[in-house]
């Protein structure tokens, strides 16, 4: 590639080099005959490059000047431009962190010794995936973005296909490929229209695009569909649970923690072009966000598959991010700077947070699968005995994703609540105020979901005896989780740091003065929050100590759990995850249904019967699949045209001739 160097190493160039290195990190492995060394090498390369890149990203966020590079390739679309502004850097930072963690994790999760067949493939494509995602973030023109986008989609698909002989994986992969490729079609429309209006694929300067109403509408909708499909916004989410559930865990972590955000980035970037957004757009994003948040977590609460549950909760988090984004867009449109700042800050902080705790949880689920070999929550239980180190890390992730203090998840939501409350307090028609109850409901559902998850997986006793003898994961898997968990805790207690991180991007995007930003964001009590978090830990410590004191004074005994008089409790009597969420699932059965089937309970002396219940998703089962079947029926009818009669084929020829003759007669 021909880079036009204009100054010596600056943050952008170091980032670009890091991206290039990560992208190529898989290649040495291909050249080596023996699997293994290549993997280790690629991990080293990725790690170093990631650290280097993070330094660059931090420099950019610190206000370093962003140079622009020209990629002058002979493709007939003109040269492409690459650059990094605070917005890109904001997304690059978690990406690189995830790259570091996931590649290290993969070393132990998919050891070359275990699967020599897939190891090289996975190494190569995860490098490609990371690089292409980063490239999407640094691209400054539509074509490069599209190419990187497609490469991202394909490499993630190929990673998802790691276990391609498994029928379930195959199905999930097919749905994913179809969804993502059809989504790209919308992007074709978007960028083709951009070219048509501006004459080039290069991104126009922010807020410089003033177009006619229809074109703007088409472009916005296209962007929302194209990028939103990748982000998994509600009606376009059908591919998401299956894909994230069936990929190797560290890949799921990347897909869920980072790739969804790339979709969000696309929306944010695309919207920034327009000088004047239609007012409805912000509201639309807000609405979609609310719907995604509620339905997403509702779906999650009903899942029995460990990773499906996490995947669905990703939809929820994307929804929360979209709520913030919509809030900001409405604010920008109506000239309400405060709303814009709070919304953006909330969205951006939540983006970072979700990119911290969702990978943590997926890596944790990987450790669980590694130990038990199943994804079925209802078979697990009491795993905190065999996974004594994973369990607390997973707990940290669960608390964080519920947005509970003192962890980082709370910080982002705090900003959104502030937006909602300030609107509810002042606006004469406080529609955005309703965001607060929505978020509260989502938070409550999240608590249900993750208490269920953590409780059913780690607590109690194993429901399935053969899962009782698993083993704790090796250090290479624990280390990344520990790192992520540590950062979650740090970011939660040191909340002001997060604000520091997102400040430049917010200022740039909302187009406000740093002064105003410090005023508005300063009103959010991050210092007090930090203090209180500290205080909370202190109080916990005090209560804990006093409790210890009391306990040690008195005799201590241990026995089996009190079964209300029932003397022979068995592990299978425990409340399963499904049972735990049954109550709430019954309340939201409009979104997600559980179909139960009780087999063979008949006669005076019924034989052993079994009850099977499966979770179904309404949108997929009752809207999309039937429509596809209808379409297929119509096509089948049309297909009779190819009937095999040669005479009629020749008749077609003459008919065409005739029709053209007639058509052409003026």
């Amino acid at each position, binding site marked *: 590639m021909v880079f036009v160097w204009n100054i010596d190493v600056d943050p952008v160039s170091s980032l670009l080099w890091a991206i290039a290195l990560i992208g190529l990190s898989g290649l040495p492995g291909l050249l080596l005959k023996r699997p293994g060394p290549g993997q280790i090498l690629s991990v080293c390369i990725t790690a170093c490059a990631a650290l280097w890149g993070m330094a660059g990203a931090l420099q950019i966020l610190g206000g370093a000047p962003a140079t622009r590079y020209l990629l002058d390739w002979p493709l007939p679309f003109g040269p492409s431009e690459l650059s990094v502004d605070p917005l890109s850097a904001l997304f690059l930072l978690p990406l690189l962190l995830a790259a570091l963690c996931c590649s290290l994790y993969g070393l132990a999760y998919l050891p070359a010794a275990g699967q020599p067949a897939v190891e090289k493939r996975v190494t190569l494509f995860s490098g490609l995936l990371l690089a292409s995602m980063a490239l999407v973030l640094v691209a400054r023109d539509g074509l490069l973005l599209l190419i990187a986008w497609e490469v991202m989609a394909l490499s993630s698909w190929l990673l998802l296909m790691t276990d391609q002989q498994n029928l379930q994986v195959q199905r999930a992969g097919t749905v994913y490929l179809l969804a993502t490729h059809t989504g790209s079609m919308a992007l074709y429309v978007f960028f083709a229209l951009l070219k048509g209006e501006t004459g080039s694929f290069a991104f126009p300067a922010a807020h410089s695009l003033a177009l006619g109403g229809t074109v703007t509408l088409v472009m916005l909708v296209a962007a929302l569909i194209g990028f939103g499909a990748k982000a998994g916004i509600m009606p376009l989410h059908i591919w998401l649970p299956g894909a994230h559930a069936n990929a190797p865990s560290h890949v799921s972590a990347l897909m869920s923690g980072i790739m969804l955000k790339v979709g969000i980035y696309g929306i944010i970037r695309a919207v920034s072009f327009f000088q004047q957004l239609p007012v409805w757009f912000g509201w639309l994003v807000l609405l979609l966000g609310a719907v995604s948040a509620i339905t997403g977590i509702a779906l999650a609460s009903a899942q029995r598959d460990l990773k499906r549950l996490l995947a669905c909760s990703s939809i929820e988090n994307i929804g929360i991010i979209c709520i913030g984004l919509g809030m900001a867009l409405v604010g920008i449109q109506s000239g309400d700077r405060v709303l814009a700042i709070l919304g953006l800050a909330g969205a951006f902080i939540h983006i970072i947070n979700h990119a911290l705790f969702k990978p943590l949880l997926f890596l944790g689920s990987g450790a669980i699968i590694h130990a038990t070999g199943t994804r079925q929550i209802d078979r697990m239980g009491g795993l905190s005995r065999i996974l004594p180190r994973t369990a607390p890390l997973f707990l940290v992730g669960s608390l964080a994703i519920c947005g509970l203090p003192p962890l980082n998840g709370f910080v982002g939501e705090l900003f959104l609540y502030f937006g909602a409350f300030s609107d509810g307090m002042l606006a004469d028609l406080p529609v955005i105020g309703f965001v607060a109850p929505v978020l509260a409901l989502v938070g409550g559902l999240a608590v249900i979901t993750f208490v269920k998850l953590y409780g059913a997986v780690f607590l109690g006793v194993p429901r399935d005896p053969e899962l009782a003898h698993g083993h704790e994961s090796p250090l290479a898997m624990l280390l990344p989780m520990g790192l992520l968990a540590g950062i979650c805790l740090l970011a939660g207690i040191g909340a002001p740091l997060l604000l520091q991180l997102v400040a430049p991007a917010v200022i740039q995007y909302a187009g406000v003065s740093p002064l105003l930003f410090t005023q508005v964001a300063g009103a959010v009590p991050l210092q007090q929050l930090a203090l209180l978090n500290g205080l909370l830990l202190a109080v916990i410590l005090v209560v804990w100590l006093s409790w210890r004191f009391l306990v040690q004074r008195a005799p201590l005994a241990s026995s089996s759990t009190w079964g209300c008089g029932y003397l022979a409790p068995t592990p299978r009597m425990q409340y399963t995850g499904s049972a735990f969420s049954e109550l709430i699932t019954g309340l939201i059965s409009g979104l997600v249904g559980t179909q139960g089937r009780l087999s063979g309970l008949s006669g005076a002396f019924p034989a052993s019967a079994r009850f099977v219940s499966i979770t179904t998703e309404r949108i997929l089962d009752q809207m999309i699949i039937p429509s596809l079947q209808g379409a297929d029926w119509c096509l089948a009818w049309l297909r009779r045209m190819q*009937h*095999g*009669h*040669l*005479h009629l084929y020749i008749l077609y020829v003459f008919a065409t001739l005739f029709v053209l003759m007639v058509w052409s007669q003026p």
Partner: protein
Amino acid sequence: MVSLADQLLVLVMLINFIMLGSSRMAFVIRAVAAQGVILGIIPGLLHPFSGHLLAITVSIILAKGVVIPYLLNDAVRKAQIRREVEPFIGYVPTLLLGAVFTALAFVFAQKLPLAPEHRDLLFVPASIATLMTGFLILTTRKKAISQVIGYLVLENGIFIFGLLLAEAMPFMVEAGALLDLLVGIFVMGIVINHISREFSTVDTSQLQTLREE
């Protein structure tokens, strides 16, 4: 001379009807041969004598009058094709259709902006009529062999139009066209042969295994 050509063209059109009407394969083949020979003669009547002209005449008569009929007969014999023509729709309807098409051809030819010297000649209507006859045979006859014949008639119709501008077509192109026609018919003959071997019939309405269910 030109008027003679016109009468010959009438003959050609009659032959069209004969082919539509007759049920005997051998007879139809002979009719095609006759049509070919006539078409071979016509250029001689239109244009002053030249080597080019002679070559064309000879080659056409050879090809259409001798070689192709021989190939067809050969195919008929090799493939033990039954003597009947076996149409999808009866002879009378095809004849009527043929009549309608011929009439239309005359009407249509009136509308065409012909060069003044061609205005009152039968070339254009005859060519269109023959074209349509070929099309009829192609679409209404079951036997592969009769479809070949239909193709031939189609070619003849085109050729009649070609007569209007023999000089536009350099000899080389003419020859190439003829050669292609020959080879084409030859290959078709072979294929028919194989068809009859594979299916023990050359009824193309049997050839329907390849289709979308």
